[in-house]
């Protein structure tokens, strides 16, 4: 009922000049809100959500592209530098969106349930963490006992090279894992990939002896970033300094840079994913997902197709791992737990398995919930608790509210609820995968006869 009412309302405004007006209005409003109240989570949501009006409303593609580019390349960096945390949130959204898109290939397209996806992320992260830090010189020291002031093995700019290397290494890891296990049926594959995810994490945790490759649980730090040219910082400050209200520091600019890198990766990933999905490989994946026996009888090499999906999904995760290691300058095994894999899976399913915009929306929703909404809510509660406020009607003093009830603690509860409710009421996800309708030239001619 509600949804149909909403649809009607939506449809009423989704034609003519309305969409353009709405998109511009939404974006401007969001920008203004964030600009004037840089600490408000709601304002931030208003801004971020303008991407969705951009997506949902029908408007001229050129208009959309211009609006999108302005939003992503100008508005976000500027308001982001004003409040660096937003940039961090958006960066995280981008990273997870990329991961979700990668997993979407494996789960959504090829129908292979991978519960250890984060392993590939770890492979990428550790790849750069090892070569982009001093770890090479620490090989013979037990964790924590190395001398300080060791040199770096490679210059920070090797980072870009490693983004490419990570694609290859992660893809090879994917193939290496996939070869033996891809013959397994769905649920068996799930447990094996889950096991593989654990194996990688445990290896990261334990390969500190006999040779100290990963520095074990202490993690590797510092990890280098690519150089940030001073002139770039200066020119950014020259152009946007007045808008931002303070001089952007190098640290700020690094945030902008990683945001751009992540954004670029997402665009590449979307591009590649869509092209592949629309080709014989994409069709073969769907066919394998639907009926393996029939697919193989049609001449589709099962294992090779599954490996392709695995390798592709893995390579996306690999790149993002490199990005993560460099942006964090710190990597430890705890970041690659089973929970992370499940988190990414949640994003895919929440958004809509097999759906590209769905994966992005899922990533955004979950990340925002995690970083922004729950935390924001908890902080708000703690402020209330420190004040003398009472809940009016029932006369309950906020300060008496148990800290056990902090929303930030109940991430899992919330995720759990989301997953269950989504599956019951909207199993296709927030933006269910759409099949491309083909314009079948020959056919219409016939039907009209």
């Amino acid at each position, binding site marked *: 009922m509600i949804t149909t009412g909403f649809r009607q309302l939506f449809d009423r405004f989704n034609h003519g000049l309305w969409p353009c007006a709405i998109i511009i209005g939404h974006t401007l409003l969001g920008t203004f809100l964030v600009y004037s109240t840089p600490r408000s989570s709601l304002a931030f949501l208003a801004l971020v959500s303008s991407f969705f009006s951009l997506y949902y409303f029908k408007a001229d593609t050129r208009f959309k592209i211009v609006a999108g580019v302005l939003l992503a390349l100008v508005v976000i960096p500027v308001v982001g530098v004003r409040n660096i945390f937003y940039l961090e949130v958006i960066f995280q959204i981008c990273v997870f969106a990329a991961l979700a898109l990668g997993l979407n290939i494996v789960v959504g397209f090829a129908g292979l349930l991978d519960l250890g996806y984060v392993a590939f992320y770890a492979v990428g992260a550790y790849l750069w963490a090892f070569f982009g830090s001093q770890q090479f010189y620490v090989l013979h020291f037990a964790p924590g006992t190395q001398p300080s002031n060791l040199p770096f093995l490679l210059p920070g700019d090797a980072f870009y090279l490693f983004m490419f290397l990570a694609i290859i290494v992660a893809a090879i890891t994917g193939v290496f894992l996939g070869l033996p*296990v891809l*013959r397994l049926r769905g*649920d068996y594959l799930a447990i094996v990939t889950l096991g593989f995810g654990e194996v990688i994490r445990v290896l990261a945790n334990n390969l500190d002896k006999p040779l100290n490759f990963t520095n074990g649980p202490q993690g590797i730090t510092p990890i280098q970033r690519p150089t940030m040219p001073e002139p770039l910082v200066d020119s950014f400050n020259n152009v946007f300094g007045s808008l931002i209200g303070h001089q952007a520091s190098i640290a700020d600019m690094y945030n902008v840079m990683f945001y751009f890198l992540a954004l670029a990766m997402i665009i590449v990933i979307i591009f590649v994913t869509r092209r592949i999905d629309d080709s014989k490989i994409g069709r073969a994946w769907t066919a394998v997902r639907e009926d393996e026996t029939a697919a193989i009888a049609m001449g589709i090499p099962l294992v090779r197709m599954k490996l392709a999906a695995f390798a592709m999904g893995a390579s996306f995760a690999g790149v993002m791992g490199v990005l993560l290691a460099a942006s964090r300058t710190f990597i430890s095994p705890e970041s690659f737990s089973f929970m992370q894999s499940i988190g990414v899976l949640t994003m895919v399913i929440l958004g809509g398995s097999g759906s590209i915009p769905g994966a992005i929306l899922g990533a955004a929703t979950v990340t925002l919930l995690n970083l922004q909404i729950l935390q924001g809510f908890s902080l708000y509660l703690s402020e209330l608790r420190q004040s003398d406020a009472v809940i009016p009607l029932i006369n309950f003093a906020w300060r008496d509210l148990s800290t056990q009830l902090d929303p930030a603690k109940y991430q899992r509860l919330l995720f759990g609820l989301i997953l*269950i409710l989504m599956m019951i009421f909207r199993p296709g996800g927030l933006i269910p995968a759409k099949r491309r309708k083909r314009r079948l030239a020959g056919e219409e001619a016939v039907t009209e006869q």
Partner: protein
Amino acid sequence: MNRFLQSINARELIRPLGQMVVFSLGSAIVLSSIVLTLALGLDQTAVGLALQDKYNVSLYTYTLVNLPQVVIDGLTIGFVYAAIALGYTMVYGVLEFINFAHSEIFAVGAFVGVEILIALDHSGLLRSASLGMSYVLLTFAIISGMVAAGALAVTVERVAYRPLRGASRLVPLISAIGVSFLLQDLIRLVEGLTTGDFNRIFPSFGNFDQRLNFGKLALGETTINLGISIKSIIVIVAAMLMLMGLNYLVNATRIGKAIRAVAQDRPTASLMGINVNRIISITFLVGGLLGGAAGVLYALKFTRIDPFVGFFPGLKAFAAAVLGGIGNLTGALLGGIVLGMLETFAGSYMGVFTMGAAGSEYKDIFAFSILILVLIFRPQGLMGENVGQKA
């Protein structure tokens, strides 16, 4: 009475017992010969010398003397895994999906049992209980845990899985992951609001912590006390009873037959006059009861529980179920024993055999690696049947 006895299918009672003995002995013998061979081979190498230096015994003696205890330990944890694995296998067998929430159903069982005992402890009843009484109280705690877990399992099925029947395979699985998360935090919430504690401790009472000693084995300058704690015995015996009971239920009763029919083809089963929903509820109930009992036993054996306690045992048990061939009860038993043995052997010997380079921290992935290997060569698991799908 006589008729009742006649109607009992003795074969179905004895068969699982025999299997347990065979599996236990079999895996013990296989693994023991592997480690002994390794020990012989490595005795004269740096590994043996390093050990000689530290422990003053040869690697071979060390390995041999430690064996009996390692086997006992492996069996104990193996039976714990088997008991939990049964729950996964029951549900998988009927609905063909991994009930991710089983680990939390297990945890709820553990919590209910432990909370009851803690309450009894506070009331002073535990400390004053006689030996016989303490067994009664333990049984009571186990049964309460079972009831709570069983009820929860049925509710979860009703609320989160039943509406999803007929959806694609991933859908109920994701819902199950959701339930699992939800329950973890719910337990935490409830515990946080009522007791404020994260860790809950199984009170010590009765003689469960005592150890039956079978004797001493000399090892260099020290001796090893060979033995098993009473609680381990309780765990093993209870797990065996559960296995036998379940095996009987599934293979020798009408309900069991209905369960198997529902597992394979729900619409057709209903055409045979089977109430499918009821059978599915019963399946979850049975799985939950077993999980709850396993939870309390786990708490008894390992003392400390927390809201996330289900996760790792659940994972291992699930791996065990897969290893054995998921959906197959005997497979769950075999998988549990094999996995328990494997990880105990790995944990006990790996450090020595690798001169400390890789120790018991690898035991989990060792178990997982074996799982992967087994599945590569036997994709249907150890006991799983490969019913060829017809084209």
